[in-house]
Protein backbone atom coordinates (compact mmCIF):
# COMPACT_ATOMS: atom_id res chain seq x y z
CA UNK A 1 0.00 0.00 0.00
CA UNK A 2 2.90 2.27 -0.58
CA UNK A 3 4.85 3.61 -3.49
CA UNK A 4 8.55 3.55 -2.75
CA UNK A 5 11.07 5.95 -4.19
CA UNK A 6 14.78 5.59 -3.65
CA UNK A 7 16.89 8.54 -4.63
CA UNK A 8 20.68 8.40 -4.81
CA UNK A 9 20.52 6.01 -1.90
CA UNK A 10 23.87 4.87 -0.51
CA UNK A 11 25.14 2.86 2.42
CA UNK A 12 28.61 2.87 3.91
CA UNK A 13 30.02 0.56 6.57
CA UNK A 14 33.05 2.52 7.69
CA UNK A 15 35.14 2.53 4.55
CA UNK A 16 33.16 -0.16 2.74
CA UNK A 17 30.71 1.32 0.28
CA UNK A 18 28.02 -1.36 0.28
CA UNK A 19 25.50 0.55 -1.83
CA UNK A 20 25.87 3.58 -4.04
CA UNK A 21 23.56 5.76 -6.13
CA UNK A 22 20.51 3.54 -6.01
CA UNK A 23 17.69 5.19 -7.94
CA UNK A 24 14.54 3.16 -7.99
CA UNK A 25 10.78 3.60 -7.95
CA UNK A 26 8.55 0.76 -6.82
CA UNK A 27 4.83 1.05 -7.47
CA UNK A 28 2.05 0.23 -5.05
CA UNK A 29 1.26 -3.46 -5.13
CA UNK A 30 4.27 -4.31 -7.20
CA UNK A 31 6.34 -7.46 -6.56
CA UNK A 32 9.99 -6.53 -7.00
CA UNK A 33 12.82 -9.02 -6.72
CA UNK A 34 16.42 -8.06 -5.96
CA UNK A 35 18.92 -10.47 -7.46
CA UNK A 36 22.66 -10.46 -7.82
CA UNK A 37 25.72 -12.44 -6.84
CA UNK A 38 26.65 -12.97 -3.21
CA UNK A 39 27.86 -9.80 -1.51
CA UNK A 40 26.36 -7.43 -4.07
CA UNK A 41 24.25 -5.66 -1.44
CA UNK A 42 20.78 -7.19 -1.84
CA UNK A 43 20.29 -7.74 1.87
CA UNK A 44 21.77 -4.38 2.71
CA UNK A 45 19.36 -2.61 0.37
CA UNK A 46 16.42 -4.54 1.79
CA UNK A 47 17.49 -3.73 5.34
CA UNK A 48 17.84 -0.05 4.46
CA UNK A 49 14.27 -0.12 3.18
CA UNK A 50 13.15 -1.98 6.30
CA UNK A 51 14.80 0.53 8.60
CA UNK A 52 17.14 -1.99 10.20
CA UNK A 53 20.15 -0.27 8.66
CA UNK A 54 20.75 3.45 8.70
CA UNK A 55 20.80 5.03 5.26
CA UNK A 56 24.11 6.88 4.75
CA UNK A 57 23.23 8.92 1.68
CA UNK A 58 20.20 9.81 -0.36
CA UNK A 59 16.53 9.56 0.40
CA UNK A 60 13.97 6.83 0.83
CA UNK A 61 10.32 7.85 0.57
CA UNK A 62 7.07 5.97 1.05
CA UNK A 63 4.22 7.63 -0.87
CA UNK A 64 6.36 10.69 -1.35
CA UNK A 65 7.10 11.04 2.35
CA UNK A 66 10.70 10.80 3.54
CA UNK A 67 11.10 7.85 5.91
CA UNK A 68 14.90 7.74 6.40
CA UNK A 69 14.57 8.54 10.09
CA UNK A 70 11.56 6.34 10.88
CA UNK A 71 11.71 3.01 12.68
CA UNK A 72 10.54 -0.13 10.87
CA UNK A 73 7.25 -0.10 12.77
CA UNK A 74 6.65 3.55 11.93
CA UNK A 75 7.34 2.81 8.28
CA UNK A 76 4.81 0.00 8.43
CA UNK A 77 7.05 -2.69 7.01
CA UNK A 78 6.96 -6.38 7.80
CA UNK A 79 9.80 -8.73 7.12
CA UNK A 80 10.31 -12.45 6.70
CA UNK A 81 13.83 -13.46 7.67
CA UNK A 82 15.99 -16.16 6.19
CA UNK A 83 16.17 -18.00 9.51
CA UNK A 84 12.47 -17.28 10.22
CA UNK A 85 13.47 -15.68 13.56
CA UNK A 86 10.35 -16.88 15.36
CA UNK A 87 10.26 -16.18 19.09
CA UNK A 88 11.17 -19.61 20.47
CA UNK A 89 9.28 -19.24 23.76
CA UNK A 90 5.99 -18.13 22.21
CA UNK A 91 3.33 -20.28 20.61
CA UNK A 92 2.44 -19.81 16.96
CA UNK A 93 -0.52 -17.69 18.05
CA UNK A 94 1.62 -15.48 20.31
CA UNK A 95 4.27 -15.13 17.63
CA UNK A 96 1.71 -13.76 15.22
CA UNK A 97 -0.01 -11.63 17.86
CA UNK A 98 3.19 -10.09 19.25
CA UNK A 99 3.37 -7.11 16.91
CA UNK A 100 -0.33 -6.34 17.22
CA UNK A 101 -0.17 -6.48 20.99
CA UNK A 102 2.79 -4.13 21.03
CA UNK A 103 0.76 -1.79 18.84
CA UNK A 104 -1.97 -1.94 21.52
CA UNK A 105 -4.57 -3.50 19.25
CA UNK A 106 -7.72 -4.61 21.05
CA UNK A 107 -8.03 -8.22 22.14
CA UNK A 108 -10.85 -8.97 19.73
CA UNK A 109 -9.03 -7.39 16.80
CA UNK A 110 -5.86 -9.37 17.55
CA UNK A 111 -7.80 -12.60 17.74
CA UNK A 112 -9.61 -11.89 14.48
CA UNK A 113 -6.51 -10.93 12.52
CA UNK A 114 -4.46 -13.87 13.76
CA UNK A 115 -7.25 -16.35 13.02
CA UNK A 116 -7.69 -14.91 9.55
CA UNK A 117 -3.99 -15.16 8.75
CA UNK A 118 -3.88 -18.65 10.21
CA UNK A 119 -6.76 -19.69 7.98
CA UNK A 120 -5.08 -18.20 4.94
CA UNK A 121 -1.86 -20.13 5.62
CA UNK A 122 -3.45 -23.31 6.96
CA UNK A 123 -1.91 -22.79 10.35
CA UNK A 124 -5.10 -23.20 12.37
CA UNK A 125 -4.29 -26.62 13.85
CA UNK A 126 -0.83 -25.40 14.87
CA UNK A 127 -1.73 -22.25 16.77
CA UNK A 128 -0.85 -23.67 20.18
CA UNK A 129 2.47 -25.18 19.18
CA UNK A 130 5.89 -23.79 19.90
CA UNK A 131 8.22 -23.11 16.95
CA UNK A 132 10.46 -26.03 17.86
CA UNK A 133 7.49 -28.36 17.41
CA UNK A 134 7.09 -27.32 13.77
CA UNK A 135 8.71 -28.45 10.54
CA UNK A 136 10.80 -26.05 8.49
CA UNK A 137 7.99 -25.34 6.05
CA UNK A 138 5.51 -24.70 8.84
CA UNK A 139 7.92 -22.31 10.54
CA UNK A 140 8.26 -20.48 7.27
CA UNK A 141 4.49 -20.10 7.06
CA UNK A 142 4.32 -18.81 10.62
CA UNK A 143 6.98 -16.24 9.76
CA UNK A 144 4.87 -15.16 6.78
CA UNK A 145 1.78 -15.15 8.98
CA UNK A 146 3.48 -12.95 11.53
CA UNK A 147 4.14 -10.46 8.76
CA UNK A 148 0.64 -10.64 7.27
CA UNK A 149 -1.32 -9.94 10.45
CA UNK A 150 0.19 -6.49 10.72
CA UNK A 151 -1.22 -5.60 7.33
CA UNK A 152 2.05 -3.96 6.29
CA UNK A 153 2.48 -1.25 3.69
CA UNK A 154 5.59 -2.99 2.43
CA UNK A 155 6.27 -6.67 2.75
CA UNK A 156 9.96 -7.66 2.73
CA UNK A 157 11.48 -11.10 2.23
CA UNK A 158 15.17 -11.90 2.61
CA UNK A 159 15.87 -15.24 0.93
CA UNK A 160 12.90 -16.82 2.66
CA UNK A 161 13.17 -20.16 0.89
CA UNK A 162 16.86 -20.87 1.14
CA UNK A 163 16.49 -23.10 4.19
CA UNK A 164 13.87 -25.34 2.60
CA UNK A 165 14.41 -28.46 0.53
CA UNK A 166 13.78 -28.36 -3.20
CA UNK A 167 10.21 -29.71 -3.22
CA UNK A 168 9.07 -27.47 -0.39
CA UNK A 169 10.75 -24.51 -2.04
CA UNK A 170 8.62 -24.93 -5.15
CA UNK A 171 5.46 -25.28 -3.08
CA UNK A 172 6.21 -22.26 -0.90
CA UNK A 173 7.15 -20.24 -3.96
CA UNK A 174 3.72 -20.93 -5.40
CA UNK A 175 2.16 -20.00 -2.07
CA UNK A 176 4.00 -16.70 -2.05
CA UNK A 177 2.81 -16.00 -5.58
CA UNK A 178 -0.74 -16.71 -4.38
CA UNK A 179 -0.20 -14.43 -1.42
CA UNK A 180 0.82 -11.61 -3.72
CA UNK A 181 -2.35 -12.12 -5.71
CA UNK A 182 -4.52 -11.98 -2.61
CA UNK A 183 -2.70 -8.98 -1.16
CA UNK A 184 -2.71 -7.11 -4.44
CA UNK A 185 -2.39 -3.74 -2.73
CA UNK A 186 0.68 -4.61 -0.70
CA UNK A 187 4.06 -3.77 -2.15
CA UNK A 188 6.42 -6.71 -1.88
CA UNK A 189 10.19 -6.81 -2.13
CA UNK A 190 11.93 -10.11 -2.29
CA UNK A 191 15.65 -10.90 -2.14
CA UNK A 192 16.99 -14.06 -3.67
CA UNK A 193 19.90 -15.37 -5.64
CA UNK A 194 17.75 -18.04 -7.20
CA UNK A 195 16.91 -17.08 -10.79
CA UNK A 196 13.85 -19.27 -10.97
CA UNK A 197 12.35 -17.54 -7.95
CA UNK A 198 13.17 -14.19 -9.46
CA UNK A 199 11.73 -15.01 -12.90
CA UNK A 200 8.54 -16.63 -11.60
CA UNK A 201 7.62 -14.25 -8.80
CA UNK A 202 8.69 -10.83 -10.00
CA UNK A 203 6.71 -8.12 -11.69
CA UNK A 204 10.07 -6.46 -12.04
CA UNK A 205 13.58 -7.65 -11.30
CA UNK A 206 16.36 -5.42 -10.02
CA UNK A 207 19.80 -6.80 -10.83
CA UNK A 208 22.48 -5.58 -8.43
CA UNK A 209 26.22 -5.80 -8.69
CA UNK A 210 28.79 -4.38 -6.29
CA UNK A 211 26.21 -2.14 -4.67
CA UNK A 212 24.91 -0.66 -7.92
CA UNK A 213 21.80 -1.28 -9.97
CA UNK A 214 22.71 -2.92 -13.28
CA UNK A 215 19.24 -3.15 -14.73
CA UNK A 216 15.61 -2.93 -13.73
CA UNK A 217 12.88 -4.53 -15.77
CA UNK A 218 10.26 -7.20 -16.21
CA UNK A 219 11.66 -10.75 -16.15
CA UNK A 220 11.22 -11.36 -19.87
CA UNK A 221 12.63 -7.95 -20.73
CA UNK A 222 15.79 -8.79 -18.79
CA UNK A 223 15.91 -12.15 -20.47
CA UNK A 224 15.46 -10.86 -23.99
CA UNK A 225 17.11 -7.47 -23.74
CA UNK A 226 19.84 -7.48 -21.12
CA UNK A 227 21.31 -4.00 -20.77
CA UNK A 228 24.83 -5.31 -20.45
CA UNK A 229 26.93 -8.44 -20.41
CA UNK A 230 26.63 -8.81 -16.63
CA UNK A 231 22.84 -9.11 -16.78
CA UNK A 232 23.10 -11.23 -19.91
CA UNK A 233 25.24 -13.72 -18.05
CA UNK A 234 23.31 -13.52 -14.78
CA UNK A 235 19.81 -14.13 -16.10
CA UNK A 236 19.18 -17.44 -17.81
CA UNK A 237 20.66 -20.84 -17.18
CA UNK A 238 22.95 -21.87 -18.69
CA UNK A 239 23.99 -18.31 -19.26
CA UNK A 240 24.18 -16.51 -22.58
CA UNK A 241 27.16 -17.30 -24.81
CA UNK A 242 29.32 -14.23 -25.26
CA UNK A 243 31.73 -14.37 -28.19
CA UNK A 244 34.40 -11.85 -29.08
CA UNK A 245 33.35 -10.29 -32.40
CA UNK A 246 34.64 -7.80 -34.95
CA UNK A 247 32.84 -5.56 -37.39
CA UNK A 248 33.46 -6.60 -40.99
CA UNK A 249 32.11 -5.44 -44.30
CA UNK A 250 29.60 -8.28 -44.24
CA UNK A 251 28.44 -7.39 -40.73
CA UNK A 252 29.61 -8.25 -37.25
CA UNK A 253 31.47 -11.52 -37.30
CA UNK A 254 32.91 -13.92 -34.76
CA UNK A 255 36.12 -15.60 -35.82
CA UNK A 256 35.30 -19.07 -37.12
CA UNK A 257 31.58 -18.26 -37.39
CA UNK A 258 29.47 -17.15 -40.31
CA UNK A 259 29.01 -13.38 -40.58
CA UNK A 260 25.83 -11.97 -39.00
CA UNK A 261 23.49 -9.36 -40.43
CA UNK A 262 24.19 -7.09 -37.39
CA UNK A 263 26.05 -3.87 -38.02
CA UNK A 264 28.22 -2.15 -35.47
CA UNK A 265 28.52 1.57 -34.84
CA UNK A 266 31.47 3.05 -36.72
CA UNK A 267 34.82 2.59 -35.01
CA UNK A 268 33.47 0.04 -32.55
CA UNK A 269 36.06 -2.31 -31.06
CA UNK A 270 36.09 -5.13 -28.57
CA UNK A 271 32.54 -6.18 -29.39
CA UNK A 272 30.82 -9.23 -27.90
CA UNK A 273 28.13 -11.15 -29.62
CA UNK A 274 25.58 -12.78 -27.35
CA UNK A 275 23.42 -15.75 -28.15
CA UNK A 276 21.46 -17.86 -25.70
CA UNK A 277 22.05 -21.64 -25.74
CA UNK A 278 18.33 -22.20 -26.35
CA UNK A 279 18.48 -20.03 -29.48
CA UNK A 280 20.98 -22.33 -31.17
CA UNK A 281 19.60 -25.24 -33.17
CA UNK A 282 20.80 -27.75 -35.72
CA UNK A 283 21.04 -26.24 -39.20
CA UNK A 284 18.71 -27.70 -41.77
CA UNK A 285 20.05 -29.29 -44.95
CA UNK A 286 21.17 -26.62 -47.37
CA UNK A 287 21.13 -23.89 -44.71
CA UNK A 288 24.41 -22.04 -44.16
CA UNK A 289 25.46 -22.91 -40.63
CA UNK A 290 26.21 -20.15 -38.14
CA UNK A 291 28.84 -22.42 -36.65
CA UNK A 292 30.23 -25.83 -37.43
CA UNK A 293 32.32 -27.84 -34.99
CA UNK A 294 32.88 -30.97 -32.93
CA UNK A 295 30.97 -31.45 -29.69
CA UNK A 296 33.45 -31.53 -26.82
CA UNK A 297 30.92 -32.49 -24.16
CA UNK A 298 27.28 -33.55 -24.07
CA UNK A 299 25.10 -33.24 -20.97
CA UNK A 300 21.78 -35.05 -21.18
CA UNK A 301 19.12 -33.32 -19.08
CA UNK A 302 16.15 -35.38 -20.22
CA UNK A 303 13.89 -33.06 -22.16
CA UNK A 304 16.93 -31.30 -23.58
CA UNK A 305 20.67 -31.65 -23.72
CA UNK A 306 23.55 -29.23 -23.45
CA UNK A 307 26.19 -29.57 -26.11
CA UNK A 308 29.53 -27.84 -25.59
CA UNK A 309 31.95 -26.75 -28.30
CA UNK A 310 35.54 -25.87 -27.54
CA UNK A 311 36.40 -22.26 -28.36
CA UNK A 312 40.12 -22.41 -27.63
CA UNK A 313 42.04 -22.21 -24.40
CA UNK A 314 41.12 -18.62 -23.40
CA UNK A 315 37.45 -18.48 -24.32
CA UNK A 316 34.54 -20.17 -22.63
CA UNK A 317 33.01 -23.03 -24.60
CA UNK A 318 29.98 -22.37 -26.75
CA UNK A 319 26.89 -24.02 -25.29
CA UNK A 320 23.84 -25.07 -27.26
CA UNK A 321 20.62 -26.41 -25.79
CA UNK A 322 19.33 -29.02 -28.24
CA UNK A 323 16.26 -31.28 -28.07
CA UNK A 324 16.73 -34.26 -25.77
CA UNK A 325 15.69 -36.77 -28.40
CA UNK A 326 18.64 -35.90 -30.65
CA UNK A 327 21.24 -38.71 -30.74
CA UNK A 328 24.26 -36.53 -29.95
CA UNK A 329 27.49 -37.70 -28.44
CA UNK A 330 30.93 -36.34 -27.73
CA UNK A 331 33.03 -35.81 -30.87
CA UNK A 332 30.06 -35.51 -33.23
CA UNK A 333 30.39 -32.93 -35.98
CA UNK A 334 27.48 -30.52 -35.75
CA UNK A 335 26.19 -27.63 -37.79
CA UNK A 336 24.42 -24.99 -35.71
CA UNK A 337 22.12 -22.25 -36.90
CA UNK A 338 20.38 -19.38 -35.16
CA UNK A 339 17.90 -16.63 -35.92
CA UNK A 340 19.35 -13.14 -36.38
CA UNK A 341 16.69 -11.69 -34.02
CA UNK A 342 18.11 -13.76 -31.20
CA UNK A 343 21.58 -12.21 -31.46
CA UNK A 344 22.63 -9.47 -29.03
CA UNK A 345 25.56 -7.12 -29.46
CA UNK A 346 27.58 -5.53 -26.63
CA UNK A 347 30.28 -2.88 -26.89
CA UNK A 348 33.72 -2.96 -25.27
CA UNK A 349 32.27 -1.58 -22.01
CA UNK A 350 29.80 -4.44 -21.96
CA UNK A 351 26.80 -2.21 -22.71
CA UNK A 352 24.17 -3.46 -25.12
CA UNK A 353 24.32 -1.96 -28.60
CA UNK A 354 20.71 -1.39 -29.54
CA UNK A 355 19.20 -2.24 -32.89
CA UNK A 356 22.34 -2.06 -35.00
Amino acid at each position, binding site marked *: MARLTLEKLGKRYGRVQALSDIDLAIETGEFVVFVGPSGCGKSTLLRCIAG*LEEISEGELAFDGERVNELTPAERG*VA*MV*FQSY*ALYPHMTVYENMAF*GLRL*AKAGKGAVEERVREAARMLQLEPLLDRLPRQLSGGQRQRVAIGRAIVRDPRVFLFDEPLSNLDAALRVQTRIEIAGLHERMAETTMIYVTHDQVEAMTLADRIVVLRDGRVEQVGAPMELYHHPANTFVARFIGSPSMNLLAAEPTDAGVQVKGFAPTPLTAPPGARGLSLGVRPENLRLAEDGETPFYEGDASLVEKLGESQLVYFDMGAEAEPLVARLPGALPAKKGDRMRLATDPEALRLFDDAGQAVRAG
Partner: protein
Amino acid sequence: MSDRSTPPRPNLAMRRATRALKTLGFWALVVFVVLFSVFPFYYAILTSLESGSALFEVNYLPTSLDVSNYVSVLTKGPFPLNFLNSVLVAVAVVAISLFLAVTAAFALSRVRFRGRGLLLLTILSVSMFPQIAVLAGLFEMVRAFDLYNSLGSLILSYMIFTLPFTVWVLTTFMRDMPAELEEAAIVDGATPFQIVWKVFLPLLWPAMVTTGLLAFIQAWNEFLFALTFVASNETRTVPVAIAMLSGSSGQEVPWGEIMAASVVVTAPLVVMVLVFQRKIVAGLTAGGVKG
Protein backbone atom coordinates in the same frame (compact mmCIF):
# COMPACT_ATOMS: atom_id res chain seq x y z
CA MET B 1 32.21 -62.43 7.47
CA SER B 2 33.17 -65.87 8.71
CA ASP B 3 35.73 -64.79 11.26
CA ARG B 4 33.40 -62.16 12.62
CA SER B 5 30.58 -64.64 13.22
CA THR B 6 32.73 -66.64 15.65
CA PRO B 7 33.94 -64.12 18.19
CA PRO B 8 36.75 -65.37 20.41
CA ARG B 9 35.16 -66.21 23.76
CA PRO B 10 37.88 -65.15 26.17
CA ASN B 11 37.87 -61.69 24.63
CA LEU B 12 34.18 -61.27 25.46
CA ALA B 13 34.66 -62.42 29.04
CA MET B 14 37.53 -60.06 29.47
CA ARG B 15 35.54 -57.19 28.09
CA ARG B 16 32.80 -57.96 30.57
CA ALA B 17 35.30 -58.00 33.39
CA THR B 18 36.78 -54.65 32.42
CA ARG B 19 33.34 -53.15 32.14
CA ALA B 20 32.43 -54.40 35.62
CA LEU B 21 35.69 -53.02 36.92
CA LYS B 22 35.01 -49.68 35.30
CA THR B 23 31.52 -49.51 36.82
CA LEU B 24 32.97 -50.38 40.21
CA GLY B 25 35.63 -47.70 39.87
CA PHE B 26 33.04 -45.15 38.83
CA TRP B 27 30.81 -45.80 41.82
CA ALA B 28 33.76 -45.90 44.20
CA LEU B 29 34.70 -42.45 42.97
CA VAL B 30 31.11 -41.24 43.37
CA VAL B 31 30.98 -42.53 46.95
CA PHE B 32 34.31 -40.87 47.71
CA VAL B 33 33.23 -37.51 46.28
CA VAL B 34 29.89 -37.61 48.10
CA LEU B 35 31.52 -38.56 51.39
CA PHE B 36 34.15 -35.90 50.96
CA SER B 37 31.71 -33.10 50.23
CA VAL B 38 28.77 -34.12 52.38
CA PHE B 39 30.58 -35.32 55.50
CA PRO B 40 31.14 -31.89 57.09
CA PHE B 41 27.50 -31.05 56.71
CA TYR B 42 26.47 -34.46 57.95
CA TYR B 43 28.67 -34.03 60.99
CA ALA B 44 27.13 -30.62 61.65
CA ILE B 45 23.66 -32.17 61.66
CA LEU B 46 24.83 -34.91 63.99
CA THR B 47 26.36 -32.43 66.40
CA SER B 48 23.37 -30.13 66.28
CA LEU B 49 21.22 -32.95 67.63
CA GLU B 50 23.43 -33.59 70.62
CA SER B 51 23.85 -31.68 73.80
CA GLY B 52 25.95 -31.50 76.91
CA SER B 53 28.96 -33.75 77.04
CA ALA B 54 27.74 -35.87 74.13
CA LEU B 55 28.98 -33.04 71.96
CA PHE B 56 32.55 -33.88 72.66
CA GLU B 57 32.36 -37.58 71.97
CA VAL B 58 33.32 -38.54 68.47
CA ASN B 59 30.59 -40.57 66.79
CA TYR B 60 29.56 -41.07 63.19
CA LEU B 61 26.02 -42.31 63.65
CA PRO B 62 23.17 -40.47 65.34
CA THR B 63 23.04 -41.27 69.04
CA SER B 64 20.36 -38.88 70.17
CA LEU B 65 17.57 -36.79 68.69
CA ASP B 66 17.72 -33.77 70.90
CA VAL B 67 16.23 -30.65 69.29
CA SER B 68 16.93 -28.36 72.22
CA ASN B 69 19.75 -26.64 70.33
CA TYR B 70 17.33 -25.65 67.57
CA VAL B 71 14.74 -24.46 70.07
CA SER B 72 17.23 -22.26 71.87
CA VAL B 73 18.74 -20.82 68.71
CA LEU B 74 15.38 -19.97 67.22
CA THR B 75 13.77 -18.55 70.34
CA LYS B 76 16.35 -16.73 72.36
CA GLY B 77 18.49 -13.91 71.13
CA PRO B 78 18.30 -12.02 67.84
CA PHE B 79 18.95 -15.04 65.62
CA PRO B 80 15.51 -15.07 63.89
CA LEU B 81 15.97 -11.40 63.14
CA ASN B 82 19.45 -12.10 61.75
CA PHE B 83 17.99 -14.78 59.55
CA LEU B 84 15.44 -12.33 58.21
CA ASN B 85 18.21 -9.78 57.58
CA SER B 86 20.12 -12.35 55.57
CA VAL B 87 17.06 -13.17 53.50
CA LEU B 88 16.42 -9.48 52.88
CA VAL B 89 20.00 -8.72 51.89
CA ALA B 90 20.43 -11.77 49.67
CA VAL B 91 17.10 -11.28 47.88
CA ALA B 92 17.78 -7.58 47.32
CA VAL B 93 21.29 -8.29 46.05
CA VAL B 94 20.02 -10.91 43.64
CA ALA B 95 17.17 -8.76 42.37
CA ILE B 96 19.24 -5.62 41.87
CA SER B 97 22.20 -7.52 40.40
CA LEU B 98 20.03 -9.35 37.89
CA PHE B 99 18.20 -6.21 36.86
CA LEU B 100 21.41 -4.23 36.37
CA ALA B 101 23.14 -7.19 34.75
CA VAL B 102 20.38 -7.82 32.22
CA THR B 103 20.27 -4.20 31.14
CA ALA B 104 24.05 -3.94 31.08
CA ALA B 105 24.32 -7.20 29.18
CA PHE B 106 21.95 -5.88 26.53
CA ALA B 107 24.13 -2.84 26.01
CA LEU B 108 27.36 -4.79 26.13
CA SER B 109 26.23 -7.48 23.74
CA ARG B 110 23.82 -5.79 21.33
CA VAL B 111 24.83 -2.15 21.11
CA ARG B 112 27.97 -1.30 19.20
CA PHE B 113 30.01 1.41 20.91
CA ARG B 114 33.61 2.37 21.30
CA GLY B 115 35.54 0.73 24.13
CA ARG B 116 33.04 -2.06 24.65
CA GLY B 117 35.63 -4.81 25.01
CA LEU B 118 37.69 -2.72 27.41
CA LEU B 119 34.64 -2.00 29.54
CA LEU B 120 33.78 -5.66 29.71
CA LEU B 121 37.32 -6.54 30.81
CA THR B 122 37.27 -3.79 33.43
CA ILE B 123 34.03 -5.13 34.84
CA LEU B 124 35.50 -8.60 35.08
CA SER B 125 38.74 -7.39 36.63
CA VAL B 126 36.81 -5.76 39.49
CA SER B 127 36.10 -9.23 40.79
CA MET B 128 39.79 -10.10 40.89
CA PHE B 129 40.64 -7.90 43.89
CA PRO B 130 40.63 -9.68 47.24
CA GLN B 131 37.87 -8.43 49.48
CA ILE B 132 40.31 -7.16 52.05
CA ALA B 133 41.92 -4.89 49.48
CA VAL B 134 38.72 -2.98 48.81
CA LEU B 135 37.49 -3.02 52.40
CA ALA B 136 38.86 0.38 53.38
CA GLY B 137 37.64 2.09 50.23
CA LEU B 138 34.22 0.52 50.55
CA PHE B 139 34.06 1.59 54.16
CA GLU B 140 34.54 5.18 53.08
CA MET B 141 31.81 4.79 50.49
CA VAL B 142 29.43 3.29 53.00
CA ARG B 143 30.09 6.18 55.33
CA ALA B 144 29.67 8.71 52.54
CA PHE B 145 26.28 7.25 51.65
CA ASP B 146 25.41 7.23 55.33
CA LEU B 147 24.76 3.50 55.22
CA TYR B 148 26.95 2.43 58.13
CA ASN B 149 25.30 -0.16 60.37
CA SER B 150 22.40 -0.64 57.97
CA LEU B 151 21.51 -3.47 55.63
CA GLY B 152 21.93 -1.04 52.74
CA SER B 153 25.68 -1.09 53.31
CA LEU B 154 25.72 -4.84 52.73
CA ILE B 155 23.49 -4.69 49.68
CA LEU B 156 25.74 -2.04 48.17
CA SER B 157 29.00 -3.78 48.97
CA TYR B 158 27.89 -7.23 47.83
CA MET B 159 27.25 -5.86 44.35
CA ILE B 160 30.98 -5.58 44.04
CA PHE B 161 31.36 -9.31 43.65
CA THR B 162 27.93 -10.30 42.31
CA LEU B 163 27.74 -7.79 39.45
CA PRO B 164 30.92 -8.69 37.56
CA PHE B 165 30.04 -12.31 37.05
CA THR B 166 26.31 -11.79 36.51
CA VAL B 167 27.08 -9.13 33.89
CA TRP B 168 29.74 -11.29 32.31
CA VAL B 169 27.68 -14.46 32.15
CA LEU B 170 24.52 -12.76 30.92
CA THR B 171 26.50 -10.82 28.32
CA THR B 172 27.91 -14.07 26.98
CA PHE B 173 24.46 -15.58 26.82
CA MET B 174 22.89 -12.56 25.21
CA ARG B 175 25.61 -12.37 22.61
CA ASP B 176 24.64 -15.87 21.50
CA MET B 177 21.07 -14.81 20.79
CA PRO B 178 20.52 -14.65 17.03
CA ALA B 179 20.56 -11.08 15.71
CA GLU B 180 17.54 -11.80 13.52
CA LEU B 181 15.45 -12.43 16.63
CA GLU B 182 16.14 -8.92 17.83
CA GLU B 183 15.51 -7.52 14.36
CA ALA B 184 12.21 -9.38 14.11
CA ALA B 185 11.17 -7.75 17.36
CA ILE B 186 12.29 -4.34 16.08
CA VAL B 187 10.20 -4.80 12.94
CA ASP B 188 7.31 -5.85 15.17
CA GLY B 189 7.65 -2.46 16.83
CA ALA B 190 9.33 -3.41 20.11
CA THR B 191 11.36 -0.84 22.02
CA PRO B 192 14.78 -1.89 23.35
CA PHE B 193 13.26 -2.38 26.79
CA GLN B 194 10.48 -4.55 25.37
CA ILE B 195 13.03 -6.56 23.45
CA VAL B 196 14.93 -7.27 26.65
CA TRP B 197 11.81 -7.89 28.68
CA LYS B 198 9.63 -9.87 26.29
CA VAL B 199 12.06 -11.57 23.94
CA PHE B 200 15.44 -12.00 25.59
CA LEU B 201 14.45 -12.44 29.22
CA PRO B 202 12.26 -15.51 28.72
CA LEU B 203 15.12 -17.09 26.78
CA LEU B 204 17.65 -16.11 29.43
CA TRP B 205 15.81 -17.73 32.33
CA PRO B 206 18.17 -20.66 32.79
CA ALA B 207 21.17 -18.35 32.81
CA MET B 208 19.42 -15.94 35.18
CA VAL B 209 18.49 -18.68 37.62
CA THR B 210 22.02 -20.02 37.65
CA THR B 211 23.75 -16.69 38.12
CA GLY B 212 21.05 -15.52 40.52
CA LEU B 213 21.55 -18.57 42.67
CA LEU B 214 25.31 -18.13 42.73
CA ALA B 215 24.85 -14.49 43.69
CA PHE B 216 22.42 -15.52 46.40
CA ILE B 217 24.87 -18.02 47.86
CA GLN B 218 27.67 -15.48 47.85
CA ALA B 219 25.55 -12.83 49.53
CA TRP B 220 24.17 -15.35 51.97
CA ASN B 221 27.55 -16.61 53.13
CA GLU B 222 29.54 -13.39 53.07
CA PHE B 223 31.35 -12.69 56.32
CA LEU B 224 33.98 -9.98 56.12
CA PHE B 225 31.84 -7.06 54.93
CA ALA B 226 29.02 -8.15 57.20
CA LEU B 227 31.39 -8.05 60.14
CA THR B 228 32.82 -4.66 59.19
CA PHE B 229 29.88 -2.56 58.06
CA VAL B 230 27.34 -3.64 60.66
CA ALA B 231 27.85 -3.24 64.38
CA SER B 232 24.61 -3.93 66.17
CA ASN B 233 23.07 -7.32 66.90
CA GLU B 234 19.77 -6.42 65.25
CA THR B 235 21.21 -5.60 61.84
CA ARG B 236 23.66 -8.52 61.64
CA THR B 237 23.36 -11.22 59.06
CA VAL B 238 23.55 -14.89 59.84
CA PRO B 239 27.24 -15.74 59.21
CA VAL B 240 28.38 -13.09 61.66
CA ALA B 241 25.59 -13.86 64.08
CA ILE B 242 26.68 -17.48 64.22
CA ALA B 243 30.25 -16.51 64.91
CA MET B 244 29.04 -14.28 67.69
CA LEU B 245 26.83 -16.88 69.35
CA SER B 246 28.07 -17.21 72.90
CA GLY B 247 27.32 -19.70 75.57
CA SER B 248 26.04 -19.10 79.07
CA SER B 249 29.54 -18.35 80.28
CA GLY B 250 32.05 -16.46 78.17
CA GLN B 251 34.45 -19.39 78.28
CA GLU B 252 32.14 -21.94 76.74
CA VAL B 253 31.71 -22.28 72.99
CA PRO B 254 28.10 -23.35 72.30
CA TRP B 255 28.93 -25.89 69.61
CA GLY B 256 25.51 -27.44 69.63
CA GLU B 257 23.77 -24.15 68.97
CA ILE B 258 26.34 -23.09 66.38
CA MET B 259 25.76 -26.31 64.51
CA ALA B 260 22.00 -25.99 64.79
CA ALA B 261 22.19 -22.44 63.43
CA SER B 262 24.46 -23.56 60.60
CA VAL B 263 22.04 -26.26 59.60
CA VAL B 264 19.16 -23.79 59.66
CA VAL B 265 20.98 -21.38 57.34
CA THR B 266 22.21 -24.05 54.98
CA ALA B 267 18.84 -25.68 54.51
CA PRO B 268 17.37 -22.89 52.33
CA LEU B 269 20.34 -23.11 49.97
CA VAL B 270 20.00 -26.85 49.62
CA VAL B 271 16.28 -26.54 48.98
CA MET B 272 16.84 -23.83 46.40
CA VAL B 273 19.45 -25.77 44.53
CA LEU B 274 17.18 -28.80 44.45
CA VAL B 275 14.23 -26.76 43.22
CA PHE B 276 16.19 -25.05 40.47
CA GLN B 277 18.38 -28.02 39.68
CA ARG B 278 17.07 -28.60 36.20
CA LYS B 279 17.24 -24.94 35.26
CA ILE B 280 20.81 -24.79 36.52
CA VAL B 281 21.90 -27.68 34.36
CA ALA B 282 20.11 -26.11 31.41
CA GLY B 283 21.82 -22.80 32.18
CA LEU B 284 25.24 -24.36 32.27
CA THR B 285 24.82 -26.04 28.90
CA ALA B 286 22.38 -23.79 27.01
CA GLY B 287 25.02 -21.36 25.77
CA GLY B 288 26.60 -23.93 23.51
CA VAL B 289 23.44 -25.11 21.81
CA LYS B 290 21.60 -23.15 19.16
CA GLY B 291 17.85 -23.09 19.78
